[in-house]
């Protein structure tokens, strides 16, 4: 790096915008990714130091000599991170890039360095885009777009300076207008391009980089552990829209099932991990079971937040899934899961039977498994016999068992029973898992196949976006019993609603924020080829409808023919107004063009206009045909000492204003200095 390279334009507004773009990239990394905080802090420190040094115009010879060692240090830090630290290649590369960026922040910058720093900043933007799905990214993207445009403009001016042009201050008002236009215009174009670019995820080179860390839970076991932490967790797990529900069904009463558990060893429920089948797929549609005739289907559009388990949540008895989900696996018991162990935010449409259809197969293939009780639990059998006495069918026995929990049982998270036997025979206090386990065991003891299901019950209904917000605190466990040839949901847990110690309602602002997040997830994060195809088909259908409407309206006796006069007036008035406006504007523009040069010669740079003002203040007013040279020579004639400066200034002035190129920076500064001096001397009292 040579010492005499001109710096990137210090033309005020743009200078700051360029730096703002660089710092925006760092902020994106800091807020939306998990890149090394130490490396980020070092970069921020280097950025601030660089700003001060750039403003001061320091030469930084010593720093230049340290460039190679500093870059070597960055390489060493990156290597150490890869071998001894994170072990993640992308993470280490980010450390290296931040190191190089820090060095560049500290050194003087020409336009090429500016472009390099902008590229690094864009890579940081990409890193954030690849690792987050947060809505904050949208705000940053909007800001970043405007900053990018303005930053590149600054660099373009910088390049011209390096080619010998003078750094003329950019008018802040024009720069602000351009920033606003770039941000809003760019945003609109970006939105259109984003909507129309075909979504093809070929996945041939790298796997999706999205973060697969999210909510935990729904493991292989479910035990009577402390659930206070879960119940106090307000994080959103899913947002669900219900385009179609049976009449009278409330979204708040629906069970969002993650997994079912059938093996109980006395302390915990386990999944049997039997055989699993791949769900039949055709494009984005996955057919679970053939639809029986005459059964009404419900529809839910589910957006799941990132999770670190493959469970696919369902309502009721699934009929089909639609979405970009890869392979879906179905276990024998009805658990659904994805191929990958975790997933980023996920959106799919589920069509389900509100009430599961009855099985056509007589009997129950794995009945024994669902009737098993831990050995030696005769007290449970005795209780079951007592509770369900008088029940002649499975349904009646189930109803009696359910009724048992409405007598003397208490819901508590603070002081629950330690085991299901303690819950049934001593404490009679517990939470949903106690109730679900106890009911399942009582049903099994009375000969009704039963299992425990885990997932979420209800949630918070958003009136703004008409969707259900399901939070961690809505986690629930319930019982499913095989009654009448289908699995029936039975929930012994008493409904708490607003009496729950963890009940909290989201405020108005919170609901709107959540609505924005839901829309972000729906229309941006999970925007898919399927949605594009649907938009096209809906658009096509709308076009068809419009054509039919038009044909109807123009047909004999149609709306148009009946109100032809009114329609003509409505259509023609704006047309006439537009023609009139165009004529008026056209005439004004013609007048301007007839005036020849419009506003005349472009306004000279500020030092020259200041000199002209000072000359005018001393009575040397500019009239048509009188040049600055004549005015200045007349003024300088009053004081011969100024003659030398005046002739030097005029030589530079003429070259700057009328030479092939504007003056280089150093000569322009000299011209500005001379103009200032001449102006001051001329306006000094006694000189005229």
């Amino acid at each position, binding site marked *: 790096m040579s010492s005499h390279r001109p710096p990137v334009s210090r033309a005020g507004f743009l200078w700051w915008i360029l730096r703002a773009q660089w710092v925006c990239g760092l902020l994106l990394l800091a807020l939306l990714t998990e890149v090394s905080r130490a490396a980020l802090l070092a970069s921020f420190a280097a950025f601030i130091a660089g700003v001060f040094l750039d403003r001061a115009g320091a030469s930084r010879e010593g720093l230049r000599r340290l460039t190679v060692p500093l870059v070597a240090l960055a390489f060493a830090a990156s290597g150490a991170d890869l071998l001894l630290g994170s072990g993640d290649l992308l993470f280490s590369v980010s450390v290296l890039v931040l190191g190089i960026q820090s060095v560049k922040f500290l050194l003087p910058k020409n336009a090429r360095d500016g472009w390099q720093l902008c590229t690094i900043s864009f890579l940081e933007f990409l890193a954030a885009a690849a690792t987050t799905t947060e809505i904050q990214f949208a705000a940053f993207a909007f800001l970043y777009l405007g900053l990018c*445009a303005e930053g590149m403009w600054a660099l373009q001016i910088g390049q011209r300076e390096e080619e010998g042009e003078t750094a003329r201050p950019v008018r802040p008002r024009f720069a602000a207008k351009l920033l606003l236009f770039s941000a809003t215009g760019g945003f609109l174009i970006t939105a259109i391009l984003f909507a129309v670019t075909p979504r093809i995820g070929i996945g*041939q080179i790298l796997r999706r980089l999205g973060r697969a860390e999210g909510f935990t839970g729904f493991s292989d076991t479910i035990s009577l552990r402390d659930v206070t932490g879960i119940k106090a967790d307000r994080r959103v797990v899913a947002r669900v829209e219900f385009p179609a529900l049976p009449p009278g069904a409330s979204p708040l009463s629906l069970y969002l099932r993650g997994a079912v558990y059938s093996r109980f060893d006395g302390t915990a429920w386990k999944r049997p991990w039997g055989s699993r089948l791949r769900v039949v797929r055709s494009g984005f549609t996955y057919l679970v079971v053939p639809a029986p005739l005459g059964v009404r289907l419900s529809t839910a559009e589910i957006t799941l937040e990132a999770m670190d388990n493959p469970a696919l949540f369902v309502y009721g008895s699934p009929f089909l899934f639609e979405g970009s989900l890869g392979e879906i696996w179905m276990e024998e018991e009805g658990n659904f899961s994805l191929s990958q162990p975790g997933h980023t935010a996920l959106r799919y449409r589920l069509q389900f039977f509100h009430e599961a259809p009855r099985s056509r197969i007589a009997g129950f293939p794995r009945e024994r498994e669902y009737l098993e009780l831990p050995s030696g639990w005769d007290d449970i059998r005795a209780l079951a016999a007592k509770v369900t006495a008088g029940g002649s069918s499975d349904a009646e026995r189930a109803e009696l068992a359910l009724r048992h929990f409405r007598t003397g049982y208490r819901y508590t998270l603070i002081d629950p029973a330690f085991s299901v036997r303690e819950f049934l025979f001593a404490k009679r206090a517990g939470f949903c898992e106690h109730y679900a386990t106890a009911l399942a065991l009582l049903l099994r003891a009375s000969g009704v196949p039963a299992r425990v299901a885990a997932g979420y019950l209800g949630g918070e209904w958003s009136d703004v976006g008409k969707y259900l917000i399901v939070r961690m605190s809505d986690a629930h466990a319930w019982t499913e019993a095989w009654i009448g040839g289908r699995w029936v949901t039975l929930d012994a847990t008493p409904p708490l609603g607003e009496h729950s110690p963890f009940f909290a309602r989201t405020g108005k602002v919170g609901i709107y924020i959540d609505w924005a997040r839901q829309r972000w997830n729906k229309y941006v994060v999970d925007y898919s080829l399927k949605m594009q195809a649907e938009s096209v088909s809906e658009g096509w259908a709308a076009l068809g409808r419009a054509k039919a409407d038009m044909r109807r309206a123009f047909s004999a006796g149609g709306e148009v023919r009946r109100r032809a006069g009114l329609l003509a007036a409505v259509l023609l008035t704006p047309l006439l107004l537009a023609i009139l406006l165009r004529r008026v504007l056209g005439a004004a523009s013609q007048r301007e063009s007839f005036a020849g040069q419009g506003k005349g010669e472009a306004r000279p740079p500020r030092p020259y206009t200041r000199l002209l003002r000072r000359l005018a203040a001393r009575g040397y007013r500019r009239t048509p045909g009188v040049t600055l040279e004549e005015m200045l020579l007349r003024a300088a004639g009053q004081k011969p000492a100024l003659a030398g400066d005046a002739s030097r200034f005029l030589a530079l002035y003429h070259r700057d204003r009328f030479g*092939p190129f504007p003056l280089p920076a150093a000569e322009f500064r000299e011209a500005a200095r001379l103009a200032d001096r001449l102006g001051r001397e001329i306006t000094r009292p006694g000189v005229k």
Partner: protein
Amino acid sequence: MKGALSGFRGKFRLPRRLRVTTEGKGFLLLTLGVGAAAINTGNNLLYIALSMNLSLIILSGILSEWCIRGVSVQVRPASEAFASRESLLAVTCSAAGKRFPAMSLTVGLAFGGTRLTARFPEISAGGSATRVLSFRPERRGALPPVSCAVSTLFPFALFEKSMDAATETSLLVYPAPSGAGEPEAILAAPDPSGGAAPAGRQGTAIRGAREHLPADAVRDIHWKASARMGKWMVKEREREAAPVSDLHLPAPCPPHEFERLVSRACDFVLRCERKGKPYRLWVGDRLGVDASGGGRRPRALTFLALVECDGTLSGRGT
């Protein structure tokens, strides 16, 4: 046929030309990379980044179009152009009638193997700016039409957009005046009878007023007539006594020799004009420039710029 072909090509020529700069190439490569990553991963936020880059390219096109559209260029000689001497051209770039300022404009002029460049960092909407360029024409005569291109790197320096600007400039290069003494070879003896040449104040009676010529002395200005006519007028007297010099250029003549004589004639014309001496220019036996009438100097120089060795005027016949 050739003209028709070029006319056809001109009709279908794109109104703007685009050149991708080095930074632009980098930007396009980066955009391609982001596109590949987006398609590969199916990550919608990468699609946003891709759309952002594409939107910046579109914005660049819109802004550069606003910047360059409506810009007009006027090229005119800023001084008399003599062959083999520094001459000046004034290039005025105007944004009259525009609502968007013209930024980072470069005007390129090309004529007869000469290429000139002028830069206009900013011309405010409705304003104009003039730059003076120097050039050294090789030989006398009418220069080929000036082709003018306006280009800009505004706003992002990713692409250089340029357009052809229409200029109706005809540049005429006068012969190089050779200062090799009196041009005896072409100078005939002065006509003692004189003529109606406007010089001196030897005559007494004022015959009338005529337009001012560069050689006229200030003292001969007819102030009243000037005020009435709105332009400088000088008194014309009866029987101007100054003798008229006749300058004969032999024609036809070998080209090399003819060029030498034209140069000397040019020098003579300039000296006569400086001294205010009346003169006439002959080519062969044809009078090229008369001593009387206004605008003698430009007429004489134009004649010398265009005259061919066979006595005809180039592009005009005899």
